[in-house]
């Protein structure tokens, strides 16, 4: 687990009674908890129960986490455990003849590790994105949209010449790449500097 000073600070602030820090923790890691519930294919009701229990346990544990930096790992493991409990209980009470997928029965260490990595990376990317100047946020959002916006649309919306979209895109991504959030992720060696280069979109 990497030492993300942001996570450590958030946990400390939330433990100290700062609701804003709690909200930020939730915003960062709700997708992690959600994706695990989704993998277990829980109903909305069960997902809500699991979510309730996981976050409530975290509220209780805030001041006691031995390694606050390992929060994503704690969340992933706790969510898995709660999901397994719901699934096992439902399976037995409904007396289903079918065996639950073996892969889900065992807490798959590798899958959890991957989910944690993805969650940390996503959280860092979104944090970095949120710190970009609004112009770059808008530009990158339009470039990521499904279906994609045309350069003409982007040019009209953002009031920049079509010819500068490529270079601005590269600059926005470079700022993202150099952001503190991504650096904290341990991705310093991501950065290949491509100043103003026209990307091969």
């Amino acid at each position, binding site marked *: 687990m990497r030492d993300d000073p942001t996570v450590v600070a958030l946990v400390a602030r939330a433990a100290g009674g700062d609701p804003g820090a709690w909200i930020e923790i939730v915003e960062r890691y709700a997708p992690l908890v959600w994706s695990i519930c989704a993998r277990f294919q829980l109903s909305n009701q069960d997902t809500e129960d699991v979510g309730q229990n996981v976050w409530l346990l975290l509220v209780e544990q805030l001041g006691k986490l031995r390694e606050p930096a390992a929060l994503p790992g704690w969340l992933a493991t706790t969510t898995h455990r709660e999901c397994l409990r719901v699934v096992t209980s439902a399976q037995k009470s409904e007396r289903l003849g079918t065996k639950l997928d073996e892969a889900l029965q065992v807490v798959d260490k590798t899958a959890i590790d991957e989910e944690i990595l993805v969650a940390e*990376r996503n959280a860092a990317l979104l944090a970095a994105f949120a710190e970009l100047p609004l112009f770059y946020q808008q530009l990158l959002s339009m470039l990521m949209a499904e279906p994609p916006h045309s350069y003409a649309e982007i040019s009209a919306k953002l009031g920049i010449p079509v010819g500068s979209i490529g270079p601005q895109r590269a600059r926005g991504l470079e700022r993202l790449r150099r952001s503190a959030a991504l650096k904290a992720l341990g991705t310093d060696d991501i950065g290949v500097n491509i100043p103003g280069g026209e990307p091969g979109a």
Partner: protein
Amino acid sequence: MTSESTFREASQVHESWDDEQLLAALREAVTARQAVPAWFVDTAKSAYAWHNIDAELAQLTYDSEADLDLAAAVRSETASIRALTFTSPHLTLELEVTENSLVGQIIPPRPGTLEAQTRPGVTTTATVDEIGCFVVDPIPEGPFRLRCRTDDGIDVLTGWITL
């Protein structure tokens, strides 16, 4: 979110990403965040209301319904009462579900007050008598949790229960 390709990308986190990969990773992060419904996030945010509430959290440690196979093998009669046990460091709550009510006892036995709280915030209060017994009547509709405060200052909160 949990596709093979996601896993592969995640393990390459230390390698350099070009612009295309970075944009793809950002898109994936945005998509994953957008996949989470607002109610799920709201539920998580509201859990903080329990911060600084000096209640110990009691974990479900036994549920007769989760033990049906064994029960069926052991008992000849089919009509069994559902029993649940919640355990916290200082207190155990034993519950039995009858037709209309929830009958329980706290161990070690002592007097206090018990609240059943539903998600919309409806609270039913019951008295815990000298030998730790209480009755919640009627059984709350939908998910609920129990909070037990003993006269000598123990404060325990269970996880959510749906009957």
